[in-house]
């Protein structure tokens, strides 16, 4: 083991199977190691080169398990290599080192004359990294959900040497008149999979489906972590001043009644399990996401008080052609989304008067990547031309993706056949019109419960609004583009279906 050997290369976390020590041992110069994996070995020294701006304590955290002698009978060479691989992968996830800059070099430590002879190999480990530039300015165009935007962005990386990041962003887009935010994010306890972030934001967004603009000013505190099996969790507290303003001349009475200020103070938990093979063009695997929000209740205060939860599940299955072993590129998929908003009394009370929801808290449904064949916000209650949203919704879709002839299964282009359906219902008291017994807006808790139950029952009252069509899907790494021809089959009067062509760009889709 006198020869120094290196196994360098990428340890980026986004690679599906980063080469582990055991894996790389099967080929390349490291195959010698295979026989020696069980050789007792321990770490004599560990050096990290190139991390000039990174705090010692952060590196200590990461490499602690490598140096620590945990196994009772001493460690083997295989164990040491595994631990080094684990530590470098962890280091890569901080996003402060260049992907291609990683190199790990092992050499046998020179034995001191006086030391007693032993069959244990003492290793000197040298790890080379290249830090990414600490200050990055960028500008460009971006595709978010249902909108395109231009942005300028400044990122300061590794500010205090502990992989802290400050990101300042300004953008303007097709719907966002202006948006500014600043986010400071730091790993906790030297763990790249546990991050705390503080964000301040201000934005003004057009909501053309309901004839108004919404201005947001606020901030949030987020704790995000990856669980052992790669599920992502985010727990956040946010406090946002929302101002519903800039109403168009034709704004409906519902929108006028909701214009003005409100503060939402809420706690949100988001869970995502993404097991899809390709997030923009899933051909196999599934996605599970839940969003649960509690606003205004208890200590949270603020002007709105509700519990809101949303569940999304989608999956795809590849379809093999009989008699062919090669990937056919054909797949079938399905998706389901459900959501409920439940108005709560403010303070710590569980029963008591609760305010019905406002337009900026209610769900909107429909659009070229949601329930296709409907305009954005095209489903659900409408006041005149305004989509005023609902408190309960269910939406589902089925689709088949077929590769185009001559382009082939490996291209990101697919022919899509789809049918999707949705139902968006608002909570209300269903009192006969002209009944002026209601004193003010607030509803008692029994009324709220009856209202929510009847809204949920209303979901299945009659066939859901439905559209079907055919189109092209192009999966760009940044966003998914769809051009569909669709026709609404069933809808409620007031709902805005879209006959003919519809273009969709976005990162999440049903």
């Amino acid at each position: 083991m006198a020869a120094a050997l290196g196994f360098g290369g990428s340890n980026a976390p986004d690679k599906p199977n980063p080469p582990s020590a055991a894996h790389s041992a099967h080929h390349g110069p490291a195959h010698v190691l295979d026989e020696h994996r069980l050789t007792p070995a321990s770490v004599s020294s560990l050096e990290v080169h190139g991390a000039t701006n990174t705090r010692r304590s952060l590196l200590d955290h990461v490499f602690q398990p490598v140096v620590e002698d945990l196994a009772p009978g001493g460690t083997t060479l295989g164990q040491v290599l595994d631990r080094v691989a684990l530590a470098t992968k962890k280091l890569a996830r901080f996003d402060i080192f260049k992907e291609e800059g990683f190199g790990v070099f092992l050499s046998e430590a020179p034995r001191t004359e006086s030391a007693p002879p032993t069959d244990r190999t003492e290793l000197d480990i040298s790890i080379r990294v290249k830090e990414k530039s600490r200050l990055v300015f960028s500008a460009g165009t971006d595709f978010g959900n249902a909108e395109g935007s231009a942005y300028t962005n400044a990122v300061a990386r590794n500010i205090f040497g502990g992989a802290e990041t400050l990101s300042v962003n300004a953008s303007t887009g097709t719907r966002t008149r202006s948006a500014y935010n600043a986010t400071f994010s730091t790993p906790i306890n030297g763990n790249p999979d546990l991050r705390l972030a503080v964000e301040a934001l201000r934005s003004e967004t057009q909501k053309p489906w309901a004839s108004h603009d919404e201005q947001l000013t606020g901030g949030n505190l987020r704790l995000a972590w990856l669980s052992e099996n790669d599920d992502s969790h985010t727990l956040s507290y946010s406090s946002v001043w929302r101002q519903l303003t800039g109403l168009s001349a034709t704004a409906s009475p519902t929108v006028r009644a909701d214009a003005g200020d409100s503060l939402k103070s809420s706690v949100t938990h988001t869970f995502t399990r993404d097991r899809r093979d390709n997030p923009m063009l899933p051909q196999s695997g599934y996605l599970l996401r839940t969003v649960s929000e509690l606003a205004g209740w208890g200590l949270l205060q603020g002007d709105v008080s509700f519990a809101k939860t949303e569940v999304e599940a989608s999956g795809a299955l590849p379809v093999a052609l009989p008699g062919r072993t090669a990937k056919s590129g054909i797949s079938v998929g399905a998706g389901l989304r459900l959501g409920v908003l439940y108005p709560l009394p403010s303070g710590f009370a569980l029963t008591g008067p609760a305010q019905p929801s406002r337009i900026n808290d209610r769900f909107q449904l429909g659009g070229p990547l949601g329930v296709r064949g409907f305009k954005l916000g095209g489903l659900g209650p409408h006041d005149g031309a305004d989509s005023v949203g609902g408190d309960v919704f269910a939406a589902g879709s089925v689709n088949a993706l077929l590769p185009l002839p001559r382009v082939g299964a490996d291209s990101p282009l697919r022919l899509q056949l789809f049918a999707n359906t949705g139902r968006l219902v608002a909570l209300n008291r269903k009192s006969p019109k002209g009944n002026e017994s209601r004193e003010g807006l607030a509803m008692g808790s029994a009324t709220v419960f009856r209202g929510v139950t009847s809204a949920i029952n209303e979901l299945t009252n009659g066939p859901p609004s439905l559209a079907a069509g055919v189109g092209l899907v192009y999966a760009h790494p940044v966003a998914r583009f769809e051009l569909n021809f669709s026709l609404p089959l069933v809808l409620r009067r007031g709902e805005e279906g879209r006959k003919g062509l519809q273009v969709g760009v976005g990162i999440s889709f049903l």
Partner: protein
Amino acid sequence: MLVSPSCSVSWRFGIPRPLQQLFDYFPLRALDPNALPERSQCLTSSDLPTLYVFSTESDARLGLPSFNPGCLKWQTLLRLSSLPFRILPSTNHASPTGALPFLLPPRTTSTSTSSPPPVPASQLLAYAQQHSPSTKDNSNKIDLDPDLGPRAQAYLSLVTLSLRNAWLCALYLDPSHADLLARLYARPASSSRAVQAALLAQLRAAAAEQIVTSTGGMVVTTSAAAGGVDEESVYREAREAMEALAGMVGESGTGWVFGEARPGVFDAGLFSYTHLMMEFMGEGLGRMVSESGKGELARHRGRMLEAAWPGWDGKRPTE
């Protein structure tokens, strides 16, 4: 969504006939419309026209005077006309003109698909005259467009400049009314202290700017207090204006401005300031009103209250 409207228009016009025929078949089924949300049903389904003003929920339920002079003027005029209406508390964001008040006519049909456009303040009286149940009866008719002579114009500017500036100065810039300002304008908007503080700062800055621009910069001081407004000269002008107005009201034989037989637009405008000053600023501007012209303005206010809110004891419900 990136469906550009221009794109959809050109497609519409270019639709070939067979495709149009296909489109006409869809949707295959159109079901009953979705019901509107509770908040919307509760706030917008009244059979009466709704005047959106600055008010509190409890005041609005009783139809009590708005605490905003601009809103109170039109609310008073509507009450003097025989149009039945209700009021709802609202904010400037809701108004088609950017300022309250405005009126929403009742929905024409029971379905939620259409609603008549909002009526801005300037067209309120025309609306009232068209829709009053007693249009034939001219006794309640208010002169819509009182073609004010030069003398009347001069008196009007005393109300719209001097009294208004004094009201703005006292309510927004005088620290002794800070709590009143917060109670009237900030707390109804949001329960959050931070939002209230931000709104108050915006309101104060806007008020100071309005006073300075309306007087052409005549009342600016170098002191940083009161937003750079010379309060003393604002109040002095207000006192002079009140004396002049009181004299004019006193000369009128009928008790209404310019000797009219019934209260009109000018009376309502004057009342909107004198009433609010007396109700909310008893010690400062309120005393100034009651002292001017040996109580002439206070008596005018009393007559207006009696005409527009007969039977109201002047007390507001405590929230």
